[in-house]
Structure formats: structure tokens, C-alpha cells
């Protein structure tokens, strides 16, 4: 089942890419995006592990698939909340930076 493993490794790599973005990309919206990469990587890993248990007249193991569907929807609602928080921060302070204003360089805009 090397094809399945290919997607599993892809999921692991996505988690890595997302973690890097979370650490190294400064813009908060991009951090939210990177966090979504981590989430989808975890879902993919879970889906592949579930695919190994396929059979019994079903295309795949339906229990993890149902959990993944629930997870995708909940991840979206969390993303919407994070974006709303960020927009509110921007509205209040005029900036979207996560570092405190006195320690960083003065804003260039």
C-alpha cells in the first residue's frame, strides 16, 4: 500500500510546512493560514491511517471520515473567529502586529 503511505508522508510534510509558517512568517493572517495547513495535514494523516482499515464492503473506514468532516467544519469556524479577532485588533490599534509596539521598530506606514 505504498500509495496510501505517500499521502501519509504528504500529511506529515504539511504539518512541518505549517509549523514553519507559524514560527517564521510575521503577518498574523499568514499565521492563521499556516495553522490551517497544520490542521489539514493532521486530517490527511488521520484519513490515511483510516484508509488502511478499509474493506468490509465499504470504500474506507467511515468512522474517521465522519470525524474528519466534523473537523473540517469546526476548523473553519475557528478560522473565522481568529480572523474576526485579528480584524478587530486592526480596527482598534490600526496595526495587525503581534509584537508590542515599544519593543519593535516604528511602523513604516
Amino acid at each position, binding site marked *: 500500500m505504498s500509495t496510501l503511505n505517500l499521502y501519509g508522508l504528504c500529511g506529515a510534510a504539511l504539518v512541518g510546512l505549517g509549523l514553519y509558517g507559524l514560527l517564521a512568517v510575521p503577518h498574523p493572517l499568514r499565521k492563521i*493560514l499556516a495553522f490551517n495547513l497544520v490542521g489539514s495535514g493532521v486530517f490527511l494523516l488521520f484519513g490515511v491511517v483510516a484508509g488502511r482499515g478499509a474493506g468490509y464492503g465499504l470504500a474506507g473506514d467511515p468512522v474517521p471520515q*465522519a470525524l474528519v468532516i466534523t473537523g473540517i467544519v469546526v476548523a473553519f469556524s475557528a478560522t473565522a473567529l481568529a480572523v474576526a479577532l485579528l480584524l*478587530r485588533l486592526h480596527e482598534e490599534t490600526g496595526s495587525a502586529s503581534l509584537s508590542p509596539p515599544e519593543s519593535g521598530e516604528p511602523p513604516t506606514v
Partner: protein
Amino acid sequence: MTMAMLLDGCLVLLILGIAAWTVLARNTFPAVAGYAVYGLLLALAWVRLAAIDAALTEAAIGGGLTGVLLIRATVRLRSTEARAHAERPGPLFRIFAALLAAACAGLLAVVFLGLPDPAPTLAPMVAENLSVTGLGNAVTAVLLAFRAIDTLLEAVVLVFALIAVWSLAPNRHWGGRPGPRYTLDPDAMLAYLGRLLPPLGIIVAIYVFWVGADLPGGKFQAGTLLSAMWLLTIIAGLQDSPPVSRRWVRGLLVLGTVVFLAIGFAGWPLAGFFLAYPEDYAKPLILLIEAASMISIAVTLGLLVLGPPARSNDS
């Protein structure tokens, strides 16, 4: 076999390439555009894993709604881009972050390859009891019958997330309409699409919902499609977003949960357990729950994209 391997290899490379693009692109807008493509490619990966239900959900939510949400936010945060560039960490920090991320990914890969094959599974139990529910789609049976409590709580989580988003509204706008007022340009492409697509989208959504009992599909996919059609008419300026204080809005938001709970509690006297269905009525009851939940999901997801109330009732 080799053809399939080639296809899978190319797809995985594409997914990883686009994912790297969303992280490494200099500006936010191209990164967000890349993320929408990423969602669609990931949906293809789910198809290859024979998880069509998850593929439909990923395409609709990962590629569609999340894209709309992030693009709207990107436009409003455009002025913050330059500051973010200035805050970019130095090379030493980035090398350290890359090493850490690679170590995590490597560890995950090792753990993944070492997992027992075949994995422990509940699939035989599902296959055995599927006929009791009267459904043909095992995923829908898991969502609405075997693990109905998860789905019930998820609907509650969605509404809680919306309440949290709404609570970010400034005091003076509380109870008002979310999002800006979009002006209708009758000659624009968007207005044309806003008139052409919703009737088709609604028919497709109802079809996806209806076949969800026996084939891939269901309330999440259909609800997402409905909310996309609703958002399209709002963004095209054909109608305004509703004030969040309206009773019908609140009613539609909780409709799915209320119906779900009512049938769940009725299960106590009728079938002996909370959320149990009387034997011969399982399928009609599940369809009823799904129909009500589809409407609530559509309204909730649409309002989550639109964000907190941003202007008073009559502007």
C-alpha cells in the same frame, strides 16, 4: 498501478508545492489565492483515498468559504503588509524554525510508518449495523446515528463560534448588519452570476443533501453550497446582509440543534435511549434532522464569513 502511482506522486508534489507557496510567498494576497487552490487539490487527494464525503467538504469549505473569508480579511488588512515585512525574523531564527519544523514532520512520518497495518477499525461494526438505519451511506450513518452526539455538539460549537464573532462588534453596532453594504452594479459580471448561479446552486445543494442518505453527500456539503449562494447574492449587492438581532435569523441559527435535540429526547420514551431512533422511523427522522441542520449550517457559515455586525440597522 504505475499510472496510478504517477498520478498520486504528481498530486502530492503539487499539494506540497502550493502549501510551500502559501507559506513562502512574499505578499498575503497571492498566498491566500494559493490556499484556495490548495483546498481543491487536497479534495482530489481525498478522492484518491476513497473518502468522497471528506473530499466534497474540503472542496466546499477549504477551497471555497475559507478562501472568501481570508480574501476579505486580506483586503481590509492591506495597510499592515509593510510593517509585517519589516518584522521578518533574521536568517538564524528562520533556519532554527525550519529545523524544528522538519524534525516535527520527520517524527510524525516515523510514527506514521510504524503504526499497525491494518489499523484498529470500527468499520465491521458499521457495516453490520448499517441496515438498521435504513441508510446506504455509511458516513451519514456514523454522523447521524452511531455518533450522533458528536454531530449534535458540533452544531452547538458552530453557533458558539458565531456568538464569539458577534461579541467582537463595537457597542454602537450591536444588533446591526454585518459586513459592508455592497452596491449593485446591474451591468457587472458579479450581478449576472448572482442571478444565474443561485437557482442552480440551490438545486445542486438539495440534490447533494437528498442523495447523502445513500451516496456521498449530506447536510454539511449542501449547507456550505447554500451559504456560498447566499453570500454571492450579498456580495453582488442583490440583497443586504440581515441585521443580527432579527428573530428569524436567530431562529434559523438554532433550528437544526432544536430539531436534533427534540428528536433526541423523544428517543428516550420511544426507543429507550437519548438520540436513539424508533426502529422503522430511523431514516425519515434522520432526513428531518439533516434538512433542519442544513439550513442552520448554511446560515451559520454565511454569517461566520460576514463577520461581526459593522453598521447600524438602516445604513
